[in-house]
């Protein structure tokens, strides 16, 4: 993975000093609340319901074991012994003290980590496929360009005070596991017919209050222009994006208002001035950074291991875990492993310090000392030998990290919601838990097959509910907590925004409603058909009829859509 040189380290160290001084000035009353807010936000510090929340950047979701150990240490020393992994592949601490945050940042800097631009109206952490570099369907490993973009975006002076936050995702595989189409900019690296590396550029996607699927602004941008092209997009946005209304300030609203053709025209006109300028990425720079992402020292193995086959055939629990939690790898004899942070009773995405240390040890012992965070809020060991899988499973199982539910109904993506977040309309973690309890029978879950369920505690959509096959959104009705349900959302290459099925439900009713939805699915399912395919085929009406009783109640207008 990428290792800092002196320049990287100095920037992070200087940031710690700068932030320490900002915090000192704030505590000394030299900076007002309003003035400190954007400064601390650009450093990932929110002030939440109970305490500040610190968001640590995990660039494109990649972590070294020593970094994970440091996160565990911070969780123990400055927090309550756990951390939360987020849908943006970052890590959040829910209980740090404001006064301690400069020290926490200094600790992070000692392992080449930081919290720069993890919040605020600037370019945020760049996310990608959790299987980058190992996925069999990968066309290009996107991590080197993601790192080049990370450096370019870090303290970019012109884009330090944008109208609103700005999220970039990159993908280099055939199937899009980075949801590039719901990002402000989505970059899809491909090879053109001549075998050259090009970028399909998506713009103006986003979730939140007004979910929009991005549009293609460039079909095949030669890779060396990726920075100048992104700068042209950002410059048009910085100048013309709306600042008069927080809810209309994202780039998606500008793109929608101008239309993609006109927006593209403006971007290309701007780009013409910068194209081929000094920010054009050179092959030498790409090579330099790519050298950090060379494949590890894989052994030459057969893609078959008799002892492993034996265990898989005789141990059904192990076999179930293999089916759900291991993934194909481009190198024979290896698998990628997902360690589930979705055990029933635990807030989705939470890991204790002990668990983090166990995972760090697993990474050292079995996966070249590295791991990844997925945007579905799980941890990944990307390079495990077939012959090691049984040991990994046993250790993970003992640590509560081997629930065989990846991709299933209980692998719920969920935001912190009303338990932690001051913007929430409703709690989300207890809803996730109630659903996990309802569907605790593994055989039944396996039979249901792949179902993605996403929960957000408010319209900001941190839990990606719009792109969940089943989406649950917390809404506020006369001061109490209600939940609106949508169906048919999807991430990936067919990214689609789900449709709301009707009026909202009280918390206690949500598990029953989900059961009804599942029963309609089971009744209509043909063979092994997937949930999402059934929804596409039969439409929403049968679900509405079951949930609301016949005749279907007309759906309430979707909340606050523009």
């Amino acid at each position: 993975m990428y290792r800092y040189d002196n320049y990287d380290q100095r920037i992070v160290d200087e940031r710690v000093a700068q932030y320490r001084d900002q915090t000192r000035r704030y505590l000394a009353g030299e900076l007002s609340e309003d003035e400190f807010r954007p400064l601390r936000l650009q450093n990932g510090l929110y002030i939440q319901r109970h305490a500040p929340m610190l968001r640590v950047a995990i660039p494109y979701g990649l972590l070294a074991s020593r970094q994970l150990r440091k996160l565990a240490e911070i969780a123990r020393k400055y927090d309550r012994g756990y951390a939360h992994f987020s849908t943006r592949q970052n890590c959040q601490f829910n209980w740090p003290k404001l006064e301690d945050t400069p020290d926490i940042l200094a600790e992070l800097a000692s392992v080449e980590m930081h919290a720069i631009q993890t919040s605020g109206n600037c370019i945020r952490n760049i996310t990608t496929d959790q299987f980058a570099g190992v996925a069999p369907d990968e066309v290009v490993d996107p991590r080197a360009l993601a790192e080049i973009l990370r450096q370019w975006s870090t303290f970019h002076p012109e884009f330090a005070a944008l109208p609103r936050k700005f999220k970039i995702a990159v993908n280099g595989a055939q199937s899009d596991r980075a949801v590039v189409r719901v990002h402000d900019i989505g970059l899809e690296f491909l090879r053109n017919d001549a075998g050259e590396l090009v970028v399909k550029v998506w713009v103006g996607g986003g979730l939140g209050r007004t979910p929009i699927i991005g549009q293609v602004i460039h079909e095949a941008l030669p890779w060396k222009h990726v920075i100048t092209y992104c700068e042209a997009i950002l410059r048009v946005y910085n100048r013309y994006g709306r600042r008069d209304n927080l809810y209309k300030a994202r780039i998606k609203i500008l793109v929608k208002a101008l239309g993609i053709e006109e927006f593209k025209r403006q971007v290309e006109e701007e780009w013409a001035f910068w194209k081929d300028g000094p920010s054009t990425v050179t092959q030498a720079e790409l090579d330099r950074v790519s050298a950090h992402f060379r494949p590890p020292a894989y052994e030459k193995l057969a893609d078959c291991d008799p002892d492993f086959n034996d265990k898989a055939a005789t141990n059904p629990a192990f076999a179930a875990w293999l089916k759900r939690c291991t993934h194909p790898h481009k190198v024979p004899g290896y698998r990628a492993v997902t360690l589930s942070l979705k055990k029933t009773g635990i807030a989705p995405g939470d890991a204790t310090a002990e668990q983090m240390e166990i995972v760090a040890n697993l990474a050292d012992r079995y996966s070249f000392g590295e791991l990844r965070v997925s945007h579905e809020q799980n941890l990944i060991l990307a390079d495990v030998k077939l012959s090691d899988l049984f040991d990994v499973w046993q250790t993970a199982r003992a640590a509560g990290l081997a629930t065989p539910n990846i991709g299933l109904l209980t692998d719920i993506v969920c935001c912190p919601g009303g338990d932690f977040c001051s913007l929430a309309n409703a709690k989300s973690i207890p809803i996730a838990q109630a659903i996990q309890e309802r569907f605790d029978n593994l055989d039944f879950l396996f039979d249901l097959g792949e179902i993605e369920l996403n929960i957000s505690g408010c319209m900001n959509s941190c839990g990606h509910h719009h792109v969940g096959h089943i989406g649950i959104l917390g809404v506020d009705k006369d001061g109490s907590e209600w939940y609106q349900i949508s169906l048919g959302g999807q991430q990936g290459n067919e990214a689609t925004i789900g449709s709301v099925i009707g009026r909202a439900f009280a918390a206690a009713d949500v598990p029953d409603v989900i059961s009804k939805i599942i029963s309609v699915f089971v009744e209509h399912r043909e063979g092994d058909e997937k949930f999402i395919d059934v929804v596409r085929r039969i439409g929403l009406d049968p679900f509405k009829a079951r949930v609301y009783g016949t005749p279907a109640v007309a759906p309430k207008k979707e909340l606050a859509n523009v």
Partner: protein
Amino acid sequence: MSNLIKHGAVVEDNWTLVRYPAVEEAVQKQAGKVVQFKLTGTEAASPELIAQVQIPAGRAIVPLAVFRARKDELAARIAAGEIGVWLESFELVEDLVAAVGDVNTLPLIAYDFPKFVDGRGFSAAVLLRTRYGYKNELRAIGDVLRDSLYFMQRCGFDAYQIRADRSAEDALASLRDFSEPYQASVAEPQPLWRRHARA
């Protein structure tokens, strides 16, 4: 004592900044929140307001709309290099260029930051310094606080009118917050990887 930083030091200010006379503006609200920023391209002032602006003798920085509307009246002073122009955060550099032709005929251009979180001035500075080749003083005015200076400098500002209730002396240190930035900018047109051989 002046609160102006120029070329890295606190200096005397020998310009007068001319603002519009205060007018009552109805509080505009959207989605229950007060609108803080005007949309890019909004008219800065009415003809009456523009006419009311008093321009004192000596060196004066006048609003763009005043400059455009009263250019003839100011012609001699413009020729004498006594007139600088300032832009609102929602005004366009292109309109300034259209009004003056060659921006280097102006000794000073200032850009207003109504709130320090309004970053439109960063792009305006970049455009002035690159596309339009502006070489003279580029001054940040308004809600200018030390934590923005480093960014402003990299975008091409060389003078900063620090908000009156803050110390310009303290703010000086922030110009050196970082020693080797990653990306290209007006101040440093080459990205780090072209400036230095990296490991």
